[in-house]
């Protein structure tokens, strides 16, 4: 994992807050939306990654400067990977 800059970390915390709020409020305007964040502000919403990329570019913001989340997804839980290795054995850590 690459380290986030201080500004990116602030944007990430802001994005997590949006995700928490969205998951707890079924009437949130961000339900099932992609949300673009830059400098702790929502700069765009979209229904697809392609649409979000286009919107960020149209704002003159670098696509790697903004942070994009799926507002209805929980980024604060652990997602399990129960993978097989090539020998067909379960790989546990």
């Amino acid at each position, binding site marked *: *994992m*690459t380290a986030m800059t201080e500004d990116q970390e602030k944007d*990430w915390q802001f*994005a997590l807050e949006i995700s928490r709020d969205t998951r707890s409020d079924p009437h949130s305007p961000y339900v099932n939306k992609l949300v673009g964040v830059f400098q702790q502000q929502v700069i765009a919403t979209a229904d*697809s*990654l*392609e649409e*979000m*990329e286009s919107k*960020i570019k149209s704002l003159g913001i670098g*696509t*790697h400067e*903004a*942070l*994009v*989340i*799926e507002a209805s*997804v*929980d*980024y*604060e*839980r*652990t*997602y*399990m*990977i*129960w*993978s*097989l*290795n*090539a*020998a*067909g054995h379960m*790989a*546990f*850590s």
Partner: protein
Amino acid sequence: MQRVTWLFHNNVPIIEVQLTDPLGFTFYRQLLADTGAGPSNSPFELVLSEIDCQRLSLMKLGRVGLGGAIPGFFDLHAIVMGIPALSFVSQVRAVAVPSIHLPDNLQGIASFRFLNSFHYGNFGDPNQFGLETL
């Protein structure tokens, strides 16, 4: 509906995908087809190496915590992925992990979220795995 199938790789199911970098160069990767990789609502569709993700990344999608075979926190990226035989090309969400965590002799994992966006299975042949558009 369109269907594509692949023979098993060392007895495990795989899919072959075409990846495109921001300059338009394409290359191919074989991924483990793994319904045990995350739930349907996970924030990623693919697990790829950090090197591939750095090369392919179009946007940053934050980070995610993984457990089980690949423990830790990892960056998420939007990348362009295609399966030509299905006329499928789209931006998808990939989590970037050190290549040491990837399955032996494969270049990544197609998660349950991705596989579940198709019909998937052996389609009557126990030596193959395939995808069919919904």
